[in-house]
């Protein structure tokens, strides 16, 4: 598999994880005996997709990122690595924890316990928020590499 495909799978699974969390949130607003299984399935899907995004992105970061890192740091947007990538790679660990929490929260007694539903809402919202931050950060890092290549061509 080419490294470009690996790189594209990382944000793709991230988006799927975000969408599954939105699904969890919406279903939990209308929790009943009939949709509890969907809430739990969507929560498991969200966690699975975020873990896949982490493993694939982590593999790409460890194996392939060094060349891009050098390029970005020498280009006009060095902050795309020094601030954005450095923050992203460590913030992702919090996202991973909350994504793992989401199915645990979804398996509580949501129909009866308000506190359990509240935890699902906030966990899902955190996954959505952090996920969007990760997607945006990835776009900035990609642009950092692009402007560095353009600067090389112009030079």
């Amino acid at each position: 598999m080419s490294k470009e495909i690996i790189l594209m799978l990382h944000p793709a699974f991230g988006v799927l994880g975000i969408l599954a969390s939105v699904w969890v949130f919406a279903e939990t607003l209308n929790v009943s005996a009939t949709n509890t299984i969907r809430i739990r399935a969507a929560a498991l899907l969200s966690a699975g997709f975020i873990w896949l995004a982490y493993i694939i992105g982590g593999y790409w970061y460890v194996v392939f990122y060094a060349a891009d890192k050098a390029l970005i740091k020498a280009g006009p947007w060095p902050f795309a690595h020094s601030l954005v990538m450095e923050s992203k790679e460590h913030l992702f660990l919090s996202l991973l924890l909350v994504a793992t929490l989401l199915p645990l929260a979804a398996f509580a007694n949501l129909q009866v316990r308000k506190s359990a539903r509240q935890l699902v809402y906030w966990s899902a919202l955190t996954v959505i928020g952090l996920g969007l931050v990760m997607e945006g950060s990835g776009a900035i890092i990609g642009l950092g590499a692009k402007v560095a290549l353009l600067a090389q061509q112009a030079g």
Partner: protein
Amino acid sequence: MAHTAHSSSSGAGLSSGTVTTADRLAPAFAMSAGITSVLSALLVVLKETNEDTILAWMKAATGHHWVTHGIIDLILFVVIAMLAARYVDNLEDRPGLTIGTLIGGVAVGGLIIVGFFGL
């Protein structure tokens, strides 16, 4: 109506029925996620400011410091959750504590990381 069961519980809608393992563990892991996020951010500062010792050890341990960092976080996540489930009373009925720790911890951890690399 789907929410009939909710309104029939206590005034706060918190306590009703048997407390299951998931009812108890979920808030414990929520607290742990918040606390681990802060500890993880502090580990970022620690390793980045001690490149010859801590960062070098983290690289040597697994081949990449980020992998070691992830493993440490996962161990902390499980251990802190187990401790919270064991020692914090009535976790399942304290959403303010658990959600506050979760959101506050993730926010503080994020601010430490962004502040460290941004300043």
